[in-house]
C-alpha cells in the first residue's frame, strides 16, 4: 500500500477543472480501480462509464496522462506514480459529465453504412463454405470493441471537427470488414469517397497506435480501402469507361 494522487477532470458539462484526489493504491491495481475507490470514498457522484472491467466492452475509454487508454487495462505500475496521474475524458466527443462523453454520434454514423448483404448460400442446406485463411483478415477487424479511442486520437475529428464529413478510423475499419467479408456483395465505394471522407485520412497512424485490440487500422483497413476507391474512381481506363456508359 502506498499513497498516490489522481488528477481527475470534474465537470457538469460546461467548463470544468482538474481536481486532485489522494488515495491508497496496492499491487496490481488499474486506473479504473483507483477511480472507483475515489468515487466510493470521496466523490460519490463522480461520473465514469465502465462495464466489463476486463478490456472487452470498450466502455471505459479515457485519456490517462494524456494518452487515450482503457482505464480498466492500464496498470498503475506502468505509470510514474511519484507524479499525479491525470485522468480526463476523451476530447473528440461532447462532454456529459466528469469522465463521461456523449458518443452517440458514432452510433448514427454506423447506421449510415450499408449493411451486410451476403451472396446466395453455397450449400443446399442454406449454409456457406469459407476457408480460415479467407476469414482471418476480416476477423482482425471484427475484434474491435468500439472503444472509440481511435476516433478520439484522429486529428481530423479531434482538431478539425470534421464529424459531418468523415466517419473516422473506427468506421473505416467497419467498412473494411464489410467490404472484405468473403460473402458480402454490396459496394460501398461511392459513399466512402463522397460522404464518408476516406480521403481526409492522411495515414498518420495515430489511430493504429492507440487501438487496444492491436488492429492494424491503417495498413490493413484504411490503405486497402483507399486503393479500392482509387482503382474505382481514379483509374484512367475506368474513368473513360464511366464517361461512355454513364455509370
Amino acid at each position, binding site marked *: 500500500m502506498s499513497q498516490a494522487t489522481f488528477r481527475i477532470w470534474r465537470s*457538469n*458539462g460546461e467548463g470544468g477543472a482538474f481536481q486532485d484526489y489522494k488515495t491508497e493504491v*496496492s*499491487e*496490481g*491495481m*488499474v486506473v479504473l*480501480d483507483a477511480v472507483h475507490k475515489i*468515487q*466510493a470514498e470521496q466523490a*460519490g*457522484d*463522480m*461520473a*465514469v*462509464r*465502465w*462495464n*466489463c*472491467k*476486463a*478490456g*472487452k*466492452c*470498450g*466502455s471505459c475509454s479515457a485519456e490517462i496522462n494524456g494518452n487515450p487508454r482503457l482505464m480498466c*487495462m492500464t*496498470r498503475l505500475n506502468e505509470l510514474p506514480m511519484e507524479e499525479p496521474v491525470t485522468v480526463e475524458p476523451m476530447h473528440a466527443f461532447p462532454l*456529459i*459529465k*466528469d469522465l*463521461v462523453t*456523449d*458518443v*452517440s454520434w458514432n*452510433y448514427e454514423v*454506423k*447506421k449510415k453504412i450499408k*449493411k*451486410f448483404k*451476403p451472396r446466395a448460400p453455397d450449400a443446399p442446406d*442454406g*449454409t*456457406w*463454405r*469459407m*476457408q*480460415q485463411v479467407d*476469414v482471418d483478415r*476480416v*476477423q482482425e477487424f*471484427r*475484434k*474491435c*470493441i*468500439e472503444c472509440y479511442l481511435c476516433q478520439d486520437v484522429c486529428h481530423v475529428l479531434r482538431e478539425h471537427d470534421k464529424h459531418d464529413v468523415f466517419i473516422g478510423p473506427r468506421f473505416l475499419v467497419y467498412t473494411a470488414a*464489410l467490404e472484405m*467479408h468473403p*460473402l*458480402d456483395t454490396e459496394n460501398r465505394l461511392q459513399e466512402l469517397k463522397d460522404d464518408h471522407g476516406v480521403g481526409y485520412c492522411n495515414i498518420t497512424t495515430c489511430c493504429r497506435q492507440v487501438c487496444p485490440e492491436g488492429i492494424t487500422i491503417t495498413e490493413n483497413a484504411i490503405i486497402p480501402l483507399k486503393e479500392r476507391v482509387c482503382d474505382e474512381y481514379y483509374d484512367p481506363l475506368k474513368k473513360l469507361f464511366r464517361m461512355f456508359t454513364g455509370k
Partner: protein
Amino acid sequence: MPEYREYTYDVLIVGAGGAGLRAAIEAAASGVTVGVVTKSLLGKAHTVMAEGGVAAAMANVDDRDNWKVHFSDTMRGGQYLNNCRMAELHAREAPDRVRELESWGALFDRTKDGKILQRNFGGHRYPRLAHVGDRTGLEMIRTLQDHGIHQGMEVHMECTILTLLTSGGRITGAFGYDRERGHFMLWKAKAVVLCTGGIGRAFKISSNSWEYTGDGHSLAYHAGAELMDMEFVQFHPTGMVWPPSVAGILVTEGVRGEGGVLRNSEGRRFMFDDIPDLYKNQTADSEEEGWRYTQGDKNARRPPELLTRDHVARCINREVKAGRGSPHGGVFLDIAWIKQHIPTAEEHIKKKLPSMYHQFKQLADIDITKVPMEVGPTTHYMMGGVRVDGDTQMSTLPGLFAAGECAAGLHGANRLGGNSLSDLLVFGKRAGQYAAEFARAHSAESIDAAQIDAAAARSMEAFNRGAKGERPYQIQYDLQEKMQELVGIVRMESEMKQALEVIEKLHVREANVGIDGNRQYNNGWHTAMDLRHLLTVSEAITRAAILRQESRGAQFREDFQSKDPEWGKYNLVIKKTDSGMAVEKRPVPELPVELKQIVEEMK
C-alpha cells in the same frame, strides 16, 4: 406528479444483450413497434464478455452429434431439474439460430472443409461450441447489433428501468430514468420482455460486470411474477485470483478445452481423484487419453478437467482448503505444458486463446505460454430466474416475458458452458415472437399513475437525505462480502440463516441511503437504486438454498452432502406475498415418453 418523458411501443425489450437484441429483431420483423432499453451503451452488454462459444449440435466436427445428444447432455448437466420442453426446443433450434448469425455477417472459425468449427466444452459429449477464438460473445453481440440497427427498433441507451407497471393483472409498461441526462422516463407497452441478465454482483468474487445486479429478477418479483431455481448460482471453477483487483475475472473453459490441465501445489492432476459416477463412463482414465480427446481423437474420452463446472469448482475449493493450493489461494491451470506435444505451442496458444494471453500479460504480468496461471472459483452465472412457459417465454404475469440469463428453466441445477449463448438466440427469438403476438392480440391498458409516483418518490428519497444518509457503496460491499462468505460454494443452514439476518439489516441501511450531487450521470444514485434489486435476489437465493436440503448441481450443502432423489422431484418457486417472500416446492413436470427414452438411451 413527477416529470417524465413518455414513449409508446407495442413491445418493450429491457436489455440489449444477446437475448434482448434477438428478441427485438424478431419482434420488429413481425411488424410491431419495438423499443429497447439498456443500462449501458449498445453493444456493451454482458454478452460481449462471453468467450468460449455457442453450443449447437450442428455436427460439423463430429457427425455423431445431433439434437438428442445435446438435449440429454443439457438434462444431465442440469440434474434433471430442467424444464424439459425448453431443453428440447433449445437443442433442436440452436443450429438454425447459429447459422442465421452467419447470414447476418458473423464470421466463426472454420473447419478444414469450410464449415463452422466447433470445440469441446465441459459436459458436452461431442465438440459442439461454435466460436471465434475466445471472443465469441463479441462476435455475437456485434452481429445482432449491426443487423438490428437496420430493423427499425428504437434503442434507449443508458436508461434504467426502475419498476414495471401493471393494471388489472397485466403488464402495461415500465418506468425508469435516463442516466445521461438524469430525467425520468415512461415506456408504455402491451408486452414487456425482460432480458436483463444475471445477478453476479451480489457476490464479492465475480466474473460479472456492474450491470449484473439482478434487476430483471427483482422487477418481475415485485410486479408479482414467479421466480424459480434461485438456489442455483453457478460458480465457474476458473477465475483469476491474483492480483486482488482483478480477482474473479474469468479464465475461459476454452483453456481446458485446448488441453490445459489443473494441478495442485504438489503438481498432481487432482481432478483424476474424484470422478462422479454419472460421468465415469465418459471420462478418460489416463492423462494420455485426456490429451488425445482435446486434440480431436474421437475414440478418446474427455479429461476430468472438463467435468461440469460445479464439480470442478468444488474440487478446486477442496484442494485449497486442504492446503494444496497455489501461493495466492487458487490452484494451477497449465496450458504451457502442451509444448511437450506441440512444438509450436507458443504460437498455437496465442492463436487459440488470444484474449487469455493478453489478459494475463496485461493484468498479471504472466505469460501463459510459459508458466501456469493461478485460478480459483468465481461467481459466474444464474440458473434461476423468472419462471416462464417453455414455448412462449411468458411469465406468470400476462404480457411479461423473459429470456436469456434472467429466465429460469433451460439449465436446471447447473448450466453447461456454451448453453447460454444458444439460450439467448433460441429463446430471445421465441420471446420476441410471442411478445409481438401478445401485443397484436391485446389493446393497451391504462397506466396506473400511483405506481409511477411511488417509484419516482422512492428513487428521490436518497437525494432528500443527501449527506445525512449513508453512502450506497459500502452497503453493496457489505452485502457482497456476506453473500460470498455465507451463501457461496459451500453452504450450511446456520450460515444461511445468518445471511438472512444480514440482509434484513442491510434493508434498514438501504432505507437510509443518502447521495450528493445532481441526477445527471450520478453513479452514487444508480448504485443506491440497484441496492433494492441486489437485496431482493440475495434473499431469494438464500431462502431457496435453505429450503433445498440436499446437494445437487450448483448447490452444495455441507450439512446435506448427497443428492436426494426426493428433492429431484421439485423445483423451488419464489413469490411475493403480503407477508413477504414465500418459497414453495413445485413438482418438476414429468418427462414425455419420447424424451424419457432419449435420456435413457444416452445414459
